[in-house]
């Protein structure tokens, strides 16, 4: 009998580089108050957002994804032709087919690269990062570009004050490659399909709908234990975590999860991502974009242990620890 040959698994994987892209147009709470019954104070108190960015007319999700991807490749020191696969986490493509990833690969010059989308909504980036990391580790691809990209404004009712104040457009990306030692920890992931209706776009003519209280309760009670498990699985203590970068859903959710982590041993000086304040909720783009912004601002630096935690529609969740490149 013949034996199949498979590549030897690598020791570990790491993030080689990262990048992000936001559209030019900044929309403040005051701008929104002009077109709907809301105000700055109400928005800040409920969700913690001050500004968000909306894609321009004709600016596509794949445009934003390719911008962020190209920056991540440049940051990694690789060439587009070194990218062995492209994964785009997204839930807001204008059409189900074609996917985003193949067009993004083509635009960046990563021609003919295997390319596919992952839809786990706001948990999508962490799902895609885990998948990309496992692909590198198993030898399916040497370097994987993982992008989170969303044009949520295509799927939001601009007059619905419960959602139009929250969601925005952006893309963030990382390049995953081999590492001498593991710098991307094991993923802890799962779903809660019994709550499928809690965040949904019902059909092609519908806008995003969210059951705020149900989602808030789920996120503030069920997500911290998952994040803690991700730290434990990587063989670390919560006190080893230098920065916590959860999906930028709502500042109150972020702060409550951080409070739970600190009650279980996370440090008081652990940096907590607050990118939502000036970026809004950008679903799968929020985590890689926050990482990129935090590194640029000097809030995290090379070698820091960063806990990522995605959660959202599905419902679905995924988290892992990574080392900042």
């Amino acid at each position, binding site marked *: 009998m013949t034996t199949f040959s498979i590549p030897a698994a690598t020791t570990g994987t790491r993030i080689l580089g990262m990048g992000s892209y936001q559209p030019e147009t900044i929309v403040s709470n005051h701008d929104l108050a002009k077109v709907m019954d809301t105000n700055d104070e109400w928005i800040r*108190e*409920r969700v913690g957002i001050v500004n968000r960015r909306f894609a321009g007319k004709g600016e596509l999700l794949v445009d934003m994804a390719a911008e962020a991807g190209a920056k991540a490749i440049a940051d990694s020191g690789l060439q587009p032709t070194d990218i062995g696969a492209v994964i785009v986490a997204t839930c807001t493509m204008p059409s189900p087919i074609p996917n985003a990833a193949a067009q993004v690969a083509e635009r960046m010059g990563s021609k003919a690269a295997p390319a596919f989308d992952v839809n786990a909504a706001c948990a999508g980036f962490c799902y895609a990062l885990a998948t990309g990391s496992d692909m590198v580790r198993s030898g399916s691809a040497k370097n994987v570009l993982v992008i989170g990209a969303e044009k949520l404004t295509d799927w939001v009712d601009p007059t619905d004050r419960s959602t139009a104040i929250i969601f925005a457009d952006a893309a963030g990306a990382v390049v995953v490659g081999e590492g001498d030692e593991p710098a991307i920890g094991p993923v802890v992931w799962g779903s809660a399909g019994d709550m499928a209706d809690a965040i949904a776009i019902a059909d092609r003519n519908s806008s995003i709908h969210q059951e*705020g*209280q149900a989602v*808030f*309760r789920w996120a*503030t*009670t069920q997500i911290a234990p998952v994040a803690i498990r991700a730290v434990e699985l990587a063989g670390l203590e919560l006190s080893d975590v230098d920065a916590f970068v959860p999906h930028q859903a709502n500042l*109150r959710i972020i702060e*409550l999860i951080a409070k739970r982590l600190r009650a279980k041993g996370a440090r008081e000086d652990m940096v907590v991502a607050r990118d939502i304040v000036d970026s809004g909720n950008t679903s799968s783009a929020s985590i890689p974009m926050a990482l990129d912004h935090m590194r640029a601002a000097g809030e995290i630096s090379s070698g820091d242990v960063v806990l990522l935690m995605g959660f959202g529609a599905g419902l679905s969740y995924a988290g892992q620890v990574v080392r900042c490149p």
Partner: protein
Amino acid sequence: MSNEDIQKGLAEIVEEVAGVAADDVTAEKSFVDDLDIDSLSMVEIAVQAEDKFGVKIPDDELANLKTVGDAVSYIAGKA
């Protein structure tokens, strides 16, 4: 646990979550209209009350708890 004890415990939770002085959390007060507590803070209060009193307060039941007294009666009936 007496209704008085439940109200005292609930007032401590409301103070921690919403920054309302515990002494102001009296039976006749409406969470929304008198204590200025929003829907997300109500969920936080419910989650903490569930832990403290060992009861379940689902969101659809929570919507019916308009006053502090409503919440105390609900918790007393389930505990």
